[in-house]
């Protein structure tokens, strides 16, 4: 009898451990088991950029609006990576930081007349159509929410990072979970509406 119970316990423990190992949920990029801040198992990989751009200094300490550099977000499907002359427009005039290593690197690219080969961090699959304009127009311009919050819905709190890292799942279920919520139509009203739930709105 005792042996049987012991056997059972062994088998049970094997089953528990093996099923726990097998039941690894769907991972999209990133190391297995890395969690996003809202509980999704999909923390993006660390992307090495040519210059370790400090978002925390620009957007965090200086409080520069995200759309000063990512200027197309409000009027186009893509938000856009700023051109080198955008960086130089300010940094030509900021003498105090010109001797920093990252700024020196920036000037090197400028002297060589080469664009900085930034790498994409938030990369959606090719069959998905995401429109920055519609989201920015709705939440930033109509609902009048702070820009750090609006961009942060999908990008996380970039203003506390140096180079950006994907911290949201950017999966379909995650998109839909927000589209199903009631959102105010504009700042002054109490009228709400959902995001579209039609397949062809996002799938192309």
């Amino acid at each position: 009898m005792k042996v049987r119970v012991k056997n059972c316990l062994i088998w049970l423990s094997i089953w528990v451990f093996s099923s726990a190992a097998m039941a690894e949920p769907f991972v999209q990029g990133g190391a297995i088991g890395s969690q996003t801040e809202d509980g999704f198992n999909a923390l993006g990989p660390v992307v090495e950029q040519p210059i370790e751009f400090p978002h925390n200094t620009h957007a965090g300490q200086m409080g520069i609006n995200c759309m000063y550099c990512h200027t197309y977000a409000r009027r186009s499907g893509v938000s856009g990576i700023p051109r080198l002359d955008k960086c130089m427009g300010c940094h030509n005039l900021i003498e105090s930081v010109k001797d920093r290593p990252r700024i020196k690197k920036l000037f090197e690219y400028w002297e060589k007349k080469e664009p900085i080969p930034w790498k994409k961090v938030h990369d959606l699959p090719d069959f998905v159509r995401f429109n920055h304009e519609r989201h920015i127009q709705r939440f930033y311009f109509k609902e009048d929410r702070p820009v750090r919050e609006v961009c942060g819905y999908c990008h996380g709190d970039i203003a506390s990072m140096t180079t950006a890292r994907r911290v949201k799942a950017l999966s379909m279920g995650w998109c839909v979970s927000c589209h199903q919520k009631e959102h105010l139509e504009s700042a002054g009203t109490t009228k709400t509406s959902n995001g579209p739930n039609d397949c062809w709105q996002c799938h192309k």
Partner: protein
Amino acid sequence: MSLSNLIKNWSSLRVKRPYEDQYKDKDYKWAMVIDLDACTGCNACTTACYAENNLPVVGREAFSKGQAMHWIRIERYWGEGEEMKGRFPDRGAQFLPMLCQQCESAPCEVVCPVGATHHTPDGLNSQVYNRCIGSRYCSANCPYKVRYFNWWQYPERAWPNPLELQLNPDVTVRSKGVMEKCTFCVQRLTEAKGRARTEGRRVADGEVVTACAQACPTSAITFGNLADDKSQVARTWERQQIKLASDRQEKDENLRGYRILEDLRTYPSIVYMERVRDSEA
């Protein structure tokens, strides 16, 4: 569809579709008019569709098996002129551009086992490639035979390097095993709708057209928004006494407008204008 959406729109989901004035208060219902009298059968629409929608050229062998992927095709019919072939060799040919009719009561939608094809709020019959498992049931049930199946993995063959650079980034490149069909160039529609919405208006008539309508040298194809009374398409439909939600309607015999296989009660979104022929001459 979420439960809250189901509860919220219960009354509209319970009715038989399509019903009269279904799109009266809606912003969009995309529709088309094709004037067969103007169509010369030049195939420019087909070519434009291939370019816009990343359609692969399948090659001679697959084509002969009927596996061509043309979302819009020119069908040839030989009419009364045939007897006079000796005198006027080309007289009898009639052309009919056939594309997805974007039926309001689409036979393909109801049979899909995985819900890969369904109806969008602006009256399109959508096809979601990610969801399609390739049962081909929709194609079997389509009376117009305008659904095309990817029997092979075409992309590498159809666009060898560097031809992949010609692909339209707004349209998915389909892989083997999925069904595809005319989308009324939904990528253009979505973009136009987004732009209009930012500016707080409705898409104007003629602001967005499908690739086939854009390419047609004789303007035989008219595309527009049926929910907008003043659009060219809506006015033609009204002039031809065709209503979206009725089949076999009573109308003036002299009118040229008709919808193909209306008796099947598919309620297509495309009106064809019959060719005017002078068989005496």
